[in-house]
């Protein structure tokens, strides 16, 4: 075994400091359990950073990984998830054969039987109820080629508007905010801006835990000469917050008030870039008027952040020469998500800090390949950042696919995930195909999701590599190949496209998601209007070539990319075309934005209601290439603490785990480092409720209950935090998924659910001494039953002894 460092206890590794005048040095991280026969090019898929790596293979098995020194994203570094996550590929409990529910139990079947059943049910349901009764719920884990194939099947084969995925839960607001401000999706800046910037602001983004390699990049600046200043906005004292020059800890759900206050201070200091505003933006006057009332004192009242701290951050933002802002779930999954994310864009626009080295905005993604769901239209967007409200854009797609214009669903906004689930609940969607995601743990209000998945009139197909909490409730389970077992590309937040190659064969009969979609398309016999097969490709390379045509002339132009180019040493940021053969580091360097009425990906929405701006209204005030500055007034969250539920509740990720732990929970080192959830609360609240460190705590909301161990400290009084990766597959003995408690609500614009606030009550819980109170009993029994699955495929084990982390690092950071 070779291990360059113990990444479990040394999360970020040794520093390689540098100043703004030097480039980020290489440092190659490696973890192998045996000497590989060969190395295969891959890209890490365990957070949204997308680090280049090589996959080590021996005797047809993955035996380790090493960072790719030449890669622009990581210069050889890997985080704990990257170094250990691959172990899950070799897990004993991989799905290897299709399963069909017969007599109430999932039983092994052949691929022919399973696919014939899926196709028969598809056809019957479309025949009886139209394609509006078919929905797809995909992932942030597939590759671009797979998403694009899925998008064409859904939009031009079946013609259903009901396509979305779990990227709605992590990244929809990033897309919405970029569209609202700049006319189209796509990050203006690049990770490289962090290497040279004077100031970094993390808004609702615990980068140290979520994107460990990106944090290494920042740590190396902080350790070098002339380090950047760091502003961190987060209600918890996270690893990121501990390094901040100024840490602002607002009450959950008050981001807009705080950001308005910061913009106001920038304006008051006379730091606005008048020339930039006049030449390249519209809407500044309305912003100025809106933020006027957000004085530091009023901001303190609304957010709980001391006025002097607001002033300290405002001073930095008003004087810095360059600024990189990153935004993530603390904004996207909270009250006024899009409105708040847009205020970060506004801050950059008023200071003219965009499109220049050291000044960038990174509206982050929660999942590695979620950018591609947005680009390809496997979520609620149209391929190539096209506007569903623009008939010319729909005609382009119809021509490309050679289908009638009215085959492509564009009569109303594409159905967002939460509405897809609602249609399943009310019975109008009767067929739901879920790929590589685990909504039975990841969606809000899990009791409701379990009820929907178990409905008799909903046919559920789950395509995954493991028997997840969701797969247990399916009618058909299709075993899928995962990373390392298939070839494809994906794009990170820096717009950088990477290739990840097949290193080993998938186990048993498992197939790549692409092959499953292609098989479905063949069996459904989807054809274009000349009678030729609709899907004209039969492998990843073919899908990539087809996708390139779809992006020609669009902001995300891939036409200059080839697999060979991507294999040459590093990823390449789009657009890549004749004009930019080596890619594009930064967008909008000329201050021209794709906001013209003919180009824009959206005509915009009302931040408070989600009402669409019509094409006529947009054309009447066509910004013609200028960025849109859109203000927002603060609004109180929809559920606030009261006498019955007196505490704020919030959720988030931990450093060792990723998306419902389906893979990371099966990588032993990662699972042992953070084996269980917990409830983090302040010393003050612990005293008030008579709770000591490691006590069992019952946490209840209006929707459900969970039982977790207490972890005290590093959080504001009045707020409790529970990490939300934990489901039941490795411990069905008690309800512990944070989403038993979260509420079914979403942002009016991005439709991203609100996971970051809810009202809860807590109490010390002693299973031996006390029976749960009335009402709670039935809810916990319901939850426990749901965890096991409707047919009790596996008996609940009684392994609820205290699972202690085997790491010397804090796990609540």
């Amino acid at each position, binding site marked *: 075994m070779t291990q360059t460092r113990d990444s479990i206890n040394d999360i970020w590794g040794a520093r390689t400091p540098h100043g703004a005048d030097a480039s980020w040095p290489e440092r190659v991280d490696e973890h192998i359990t045996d000497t590989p026969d060969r190395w295969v090019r891959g890209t890490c898929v365990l957070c949204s950073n997308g680090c280049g790596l090589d996959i080590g293979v021996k005797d047809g098995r993955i035996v380790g990984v090493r960072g790719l020194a030449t890669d622009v994203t990581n210069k050889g570094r890997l985080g704990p998830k990257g170094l250990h996550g691959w172990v899950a590929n070799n897990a004993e409990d991989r799905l290897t054969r299709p399963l069909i529910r017969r007599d109430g139990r999932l039983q092994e079947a052949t691929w022919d039987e399973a696919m014939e059943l899926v196709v028969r049910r598809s056809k019957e349901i479309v025949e009886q*109820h139209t394609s509006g009764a078919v929905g797809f719920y995909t992932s942030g884990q597939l590759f671009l080629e797979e998403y694009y194939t899925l998008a064409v099947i859904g939009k031009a084969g079946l013609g259903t508007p009901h396509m979305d995925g779990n990227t709605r839960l992590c990244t929809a607001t990033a897309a919405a905010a970029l569209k609202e401000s700049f006319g189209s999706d796509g990050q203006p800046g690049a990770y490289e801006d962090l290497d040279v910037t004077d100031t970094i602001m993390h808004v609702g983004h615990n980068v140290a835990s979520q994107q460990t390699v990106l944090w290494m990049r920042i740590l190396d600046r902080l350790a070098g000469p002339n380090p950047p200043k760091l502003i961190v906005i987060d209600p918890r004292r996270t690893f990121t917050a501990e390094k901040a020059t100024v840490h602002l800890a607002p009450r959950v759900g008050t981001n807009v008030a705080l950001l308005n206050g910061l913009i106001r201070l920038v304006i008051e200091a006379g730091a606005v870039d008048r020339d930039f505003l006049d030449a390249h933006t519209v809407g500044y006057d309305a912003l100025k008027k809106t933020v006027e009332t957000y004085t530091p004192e009023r901001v303190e009242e609304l957010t709980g952040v001391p006025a002097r701290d607001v002033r300290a951050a405002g001073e930095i933002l008003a004087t810095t020469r360059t600024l990189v802002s990153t935004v993530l779930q603390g904004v996207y999954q909270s009250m006024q998500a899009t409105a708040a994310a847009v205020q970060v864009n506004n801050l950059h626009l008023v200071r003219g800090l965009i499109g220049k080295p050291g000044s960038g905005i990174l509206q982050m993604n929660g999942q590695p390949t979620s950018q591609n769901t947005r680009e390809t239209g496997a979520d609620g967007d149209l391929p190539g950042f096209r506007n569903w409200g623009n008939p010319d854009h729909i005609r382009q797609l119809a021509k490309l696919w050679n289908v009638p214009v009215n085959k492509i669903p564009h009569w109303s*906004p594409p159905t967002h995930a939460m509405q897809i689930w609602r249609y399943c609940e009310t*019975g109008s969607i009767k067929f739901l195909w879920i790929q590589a995601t685990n909504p039975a743990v990841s969606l809000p209000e899990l009791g409701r999701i379990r009820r929907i998945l178990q409905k008799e009139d909903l046919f559920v197909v789950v395509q995954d590599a493991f028997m997840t909490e969701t797969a247990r409730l399916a009618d058909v389970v299709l075993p899928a190949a995962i990373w390392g077992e298939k070839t494809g590309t994906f794009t990170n937040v820096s717009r950088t496209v990477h290739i990840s190659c097949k290193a080993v064969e998938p186990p048993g009969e498992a197939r790549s998601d692409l092959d499953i979609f292609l098989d479905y398309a063949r069996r459904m016999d989807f054809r274009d209007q000349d009678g030729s097969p609709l899907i004209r490709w039969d492998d990843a390379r073919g899908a990539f070539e087809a996708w390139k045509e779809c992006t020609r002339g669009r902001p995300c132009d891939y036409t200059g990319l080839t697999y060979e180019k991507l294999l040459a040493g590093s990823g390449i940021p789009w657009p890549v075309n004749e004009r930019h053969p080596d890619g594009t580091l930064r967008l909008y360097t000329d201050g021209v934005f794709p906001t013209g009425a003919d180009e824009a990906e959206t005509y915009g*929405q009302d931040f408070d*209601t*989600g*009402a*669409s701006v019509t094409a006529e209204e947009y054309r009447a005030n066509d910004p013609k290439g200028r960025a849109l500055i859109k203000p927002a007034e603060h609004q109180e969250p929809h559920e606030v603490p009261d006498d019955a539920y007196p505490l704020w509740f919030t959720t988030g990720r931990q450093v060792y785990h990723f998306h419902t732990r389906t893979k990371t929970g099966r990588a032993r080192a990662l699972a042992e480092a953070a084996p269980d959830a917990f409830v983090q609360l302040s010393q003050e609240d612990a005293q008030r409720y008579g709770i000591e460190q490691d006590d069992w705590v019952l946490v209840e909301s209006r929707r459900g209950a969970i039982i977790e161990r207490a972890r005290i400290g590093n959080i504001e009084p009045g707020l409790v935090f529970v990490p939300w990766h934990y489901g039941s597959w490795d411990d069905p003995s008690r309800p512990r998924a944070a989403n038993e408690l979260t509420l079914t*609500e979403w942002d009016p614009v991005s439709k991203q659910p609100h996971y970051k606030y809810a009202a809860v009550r807590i109490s010390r819980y002693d299973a031996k001494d006390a029976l749960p109170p009335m009402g709670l009993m039935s809810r916990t029994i319901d939850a426990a039953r749901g965890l096991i699955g409707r047919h009790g495929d596996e008996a609940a084990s009684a392994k609820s002894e205290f699972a202690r982390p085997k790491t010397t690092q804090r796990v609540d950071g």
Partner: protein
Amino acid sequence: MHVGNYLGLVHGSEERLVDVLRKVARHHRDEPDVEQTCLLLAAWSEKHLKFLRPLVEKYGEEKNPEPDDLEVALFHGPRTGSLGLLRDLHDLWLMSNEVQLCWTVLEQAAQALRDDDLERVCKECGKETKRQTAFFLTRIKQAAPQALVVA
């Protein structure tokens, strides 16, 4: 001088809108966006009523019977199911347009009267009423295909 007539009309229409928005919010609680947005829009209309108070004192108010009839015609009480939701939003769209028209008519009179206060209230309220209408239309467009074609 018939400004009081339209003040009465807009007053009654806004009151009815608040009432129906709250009923729809309560009834369609399983559609969280409808519930939350209708409650928000109801708060806007309540604010409009507050703005109206000094103007009513200034110009007097003639009670109009129309709104009662309108409610009977437009809204019998919330309906259930996806078609019911669509019809409720449909009625709200019509009711908000009724309010919108009142603000437009009053704004014209305000200009003729050179009454800046009245004009400002009509402009502000009219702008928000337009946002209410835009929401109903957006949500109607979202719900219509599924409700009419699929189920």
